């Protein structure tokens, strides 16, 4: 799934102009930066923050969908949803590993998530109220994630780019299974179609917000673009997403909940109505409808799992001691 446009990265850096110029030359030559290479502190900090947010998003992203696994309407849907949620757990792990190459530990990242210091994608702070939401999340939320993640496969930091290639390969199934769910409902009874439309109404705007603030309000974008951590601006990616998604909704006979949405021949894309940025910042700051439940669930998983982690380490230690004694 994915992280939204990076919020609150601090990419200040204090190296000499010569050092920064040397680094920028490597970036401009499309060289990949590997973990032990010299890099500006701001580059390292931005990546730790972005990859960490991304990893947390994958892990927290398992919760809204986990909510429906036991209530999936058929075995086929249940198997697919289980596989999707398992993938998201895996994606979180690939990403944590990539961040750890920059010198931050898994435990530190987990603590930052649980304390609320680290952000995750705000989209997961909305509730999943109906089965149709499983379809809409796959279609829109994973669709938006893919738009964001494909350019990240070319990110200048090697471990992040490699993790994203794996993630993107697996993510395509997520979007397709979601669209199939929405399509089945849209072609079903009037009640089923209404359920699909209601779900689209609730998820459309939060999905557009996933790309982050408008370029004019996105303070750290320029440096991230120069360092090739980011390849497209928030608005460029949002536009791509809208242009790809509107025809998909039309095919389903569903209506995008934006009265201002219309094709702009001149720019070759859709114009859209204003995004409610007050809502966006409210949710980013932790006032989303499900924010408390999400962190509570993660904290419970971490606390309840403590004895398992400790027992596994104690067992490993015991086996190691026995092996030494036998030698």
């Amino acid at each position: 799934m994915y992280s939204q446009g990076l919020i609150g990265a601090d990419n200040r850096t204090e190296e000499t102009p010569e050092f920064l110029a040397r680094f920028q030359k490597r970036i401009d030559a499309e060289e990949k930066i590997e973990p032990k290479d010299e890099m500006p502190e701001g580059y390292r900090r931005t990546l730790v923050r972005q990859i960490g947010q991304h990893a947390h998003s994958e892990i927290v992203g398992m919760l809204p969908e986990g909510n429906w696994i036991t209530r999936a309407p058929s075995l086929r849907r249940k198997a697919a949803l289980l596989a999707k949620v398992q993938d998201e757990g895996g994606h979180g792990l690939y990403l944590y590993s990539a961040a750890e190459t920059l010198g931050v530990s898994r435990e530190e990242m987990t603590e930052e998530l649980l304390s609320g210091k680290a952000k995750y994608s705000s989209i997961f702070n909305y509730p999943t109220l109906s089965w149709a939401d499983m379809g809409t999340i796959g279609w829109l939320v994973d669709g938006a994630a893919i738009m964001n993640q494909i350019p990240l496969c070319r990110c200048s930091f090697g471990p992040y780019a490699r993790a994203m290639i794996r993630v993107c390969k697996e993510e395509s199934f997520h979007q397709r299974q979601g669209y199939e769910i929405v399509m089945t409902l849209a072609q079903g009874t009037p009640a089923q179609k209404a359920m699909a439309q209601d779900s689209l109404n609730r998820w459309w705007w939060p999905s557009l917000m996933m790309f982050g603030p408008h370029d004019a309000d996105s303070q750290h974008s320029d440096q991230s673009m120069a360092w090739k951590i980011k390849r497209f601006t928030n608005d460029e990616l949002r536009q791509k997403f809208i242009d790809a998604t509107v025809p998909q909704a039309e095919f389903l006979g569903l209506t995008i909940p934006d009265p201002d949405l219309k094709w702009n021949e001149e720019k070759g894309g859709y114009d859209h109505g204003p995004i409610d940025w007050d809502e966006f910042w409210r949710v980013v700051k932790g006032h989303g409808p499900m924010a408390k439940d999400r962190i509570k669930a993660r904290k419970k998983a971490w606390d309840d799992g403590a004895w398992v982690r400790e027992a596994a380490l104690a067992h490993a230690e015991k086996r190691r001691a026995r092996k030494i004694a036998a030698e």
Partner: protein
Amino acid sequence: MTMTTPLWEVFIRPRNGLAHKHVGSLHAADEVMALQAARDVYTRRGEGNSIWVVPSAAITASDPDQAAENFEPTADKIYRHPTFYEIPDDVGHM
């Protein structure tokens, strides 16, 4: 803070005849759990038929700061490549 769980590097062989290739890393208490986790995390779609896990701490890596002195000398030894030598076309493929 709790004890930290060791880090492992994971290598997978896609199929017989190919070498094991590094695919990523994971945390696990011991080698048995590392193998199980590697199977779950890195082989959900038939990525391979064999897994190696190696404690990350057991890897010794070359220093990127010495990359120039380590690897650049090979760049000017073009006589190590077959195309350095001129063989007339009449001789045929060699």
